């Protein structure tokens, strides 16, 4: 369970302060698939960064089980991310001078996962293990980043607009891989997107507007990546 209480986050200095998150509270159950939906500038990416431990809030708490990550030192926060968190970004952020296999191994070595090649197979890239990121399409690069994130066996997977740079077909394919792996491994997913259709795949949808939660609702029936509109 992730308990988020009264998160406030601002950018800028004294005279020009911009409050991006205005006292957000939320509960995320283990194994849940949460989509954070909102227009550009609504604060959804900042919210994701704060609850994943990439950024510290000005005030409020983010408690995983019994551990409040806003109180952890930088070193402990790094260890926390190592043990618990996986990330997938819109821009992939693969290491350009490393092959697919080595990029995935970056995640796997953190937790001593020797079976990381299974993850490459799971995202359908078993014949591209020796390729470099520049030799792959955008969809393939995003699948590498999915494999990399999951190779460390995270308890929570954070995704920031994972299909934002992909075309419809590739986007559906990537989402399908993520959903299938979610069902198989049972980790928690927190995904940020501006695409309303993707929200239909989630258990829980959190709508954000101007740094606040505008609505939280559960989907009665979750759709697959190939059932949603685009």
């Amino acid at each position: 369970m992730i308990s988020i209480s009264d998160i406030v986050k601002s950018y800028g200095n004294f005279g020009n302060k911009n409050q991006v998150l205005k006292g957000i509270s939320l509960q995320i159950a283990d194994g849940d698939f949460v989509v954070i939906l909102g227009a550009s500038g609504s604060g959804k990416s900042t919210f994701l960064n704060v609850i994943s431990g990439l950024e510290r809030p000005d005030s409020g708490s983010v408690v995983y089980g019994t551990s409040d990550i806003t109180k952890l030192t930088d070193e402990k926060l790094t260890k926390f991310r190592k043990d618990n968190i996986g990330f997938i970004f819109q821009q992939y952020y693969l290491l350009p001078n490393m092959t697919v296999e080595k990029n995935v191994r970056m995640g796997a070595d953190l937790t001593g996962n020797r079976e990381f090649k299974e993850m490459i197979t799971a995202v359908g890239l078993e014949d591209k293990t020796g390729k470099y990121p520049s030799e792959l399409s955008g969809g393939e690069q995003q699948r590498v980043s999915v494999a990399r994130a999951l190779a460390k066996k995270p308890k929570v997977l954070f995704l920031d607009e994972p299909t934002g740079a992909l075309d419809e077909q590739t986007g559906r394919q990537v989402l399908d891989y993520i959903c299938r792996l979610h069902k198989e491994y049972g980790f928690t997913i927190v995904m940020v997107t501006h695409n309303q259709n993707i929200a239909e795949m989630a258990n829980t949808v959190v709508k954000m507007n101007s740094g606040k939660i505008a609505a939280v609702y559960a989907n009665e029936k979750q759709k697959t990546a190939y059932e949603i509109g685009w």
Partner: protein
Amino acid sequence: MIVGMKDTVKLVGISVIAGCAVFVCTLFLHYNMDLATMKGEITTRAGMAMYQAQVSTGKVTASVSGGCLAATSVVMLLFYVKNYIDSHGRELGILKALGYSGLKIARHFWVFGLSVFVGCALGYGAAFFYLPSFYELQNAGHLFPEIKVRFHPLLAFFLVGVPAVSFSALAVAYACLRLRCPVLGLLKEKHEYKAKIRRRETKDKPFLEDLAESTVRERKTLVFFVTFSAFCFSAMVQMSMSMKDLSSKTMAVMMMAIGLILAFITLFLSLSSVVKGNTKTIAMMRVFGYSYSDCGKAVLGGYRPFAYIGFVIGTVYQYALLKIAVGILFADVDNMPEYGFDFKICAVTFVLFILAYEVVMCGYSQRIKRLPLKSVMME
């Protein structure tokens, strides 16, 4: 403007090096020229011997210091131009895609020569004001009649105008050469473009080991720059310390100060490039949960052996250069001490080098620690 004036501000290292080079060369060449005008007035045997010794010392100092520093400036300028093109590849690629020729874009790189002009002008100016004191120092034994400081416009032109124009031309020519690559090569980031060719046997190595190897393998320019800066550090510091046997005490102190400043600047600039060039990789590793020490060992540690190699080459180089220079230029001068390798200076320089290297690396690691992960990845 593609390359703005503010981009030249980052080349302050080149200005300092050029300034030091011109400062030293101006002092000695000016002195030699003014001294030569009164050669006929030197009547004593001791005066003539001193004249020959000072002219030779001036030649050695000006050529060794000026030559080394000019070479350093050239390497640094080329590195900056390459770095600028690599980091602004997308903007330059768009311009090329729009139809601007490589030469048309490269022409804007002339401003990089301004840093040399500023350095040379300041170096020349500083030396010119110091000349009266320098002349007194050189003629402390009053073996020559009073030497007057004269202005030599040709010398000023060769020490300020020519380097500035040459470096501007060099920056344009090198930029033109680098911009000859296809538009896609610029639009895609350099490393992305290059990586696709390499096909190596990938052994089952742990990620961190593999990263350390590939970081060094794929960033050869940075490896070269680190090796070169260690080379400069080693050569400049040892050479300036060795000068105490070949010139007056004041001159030795001045040379040592210049040598140390330049050596530290080169090392500082190269290490800052190393850290900057690897910031994104470190940030990504941190996001995934790798500790700072893991990141440091894998990403920054790979350059250390090359720094030591550079130090060794610099040691050999400075010894050989001084041995040859002293042998040739002081061959006719009586009572010149034989130049031999000084292990004590070498050891002191090595300790200084390790300290400087580790302090700069540590400083930059601290700076990386303070950078928010998000901002690093958004760059």
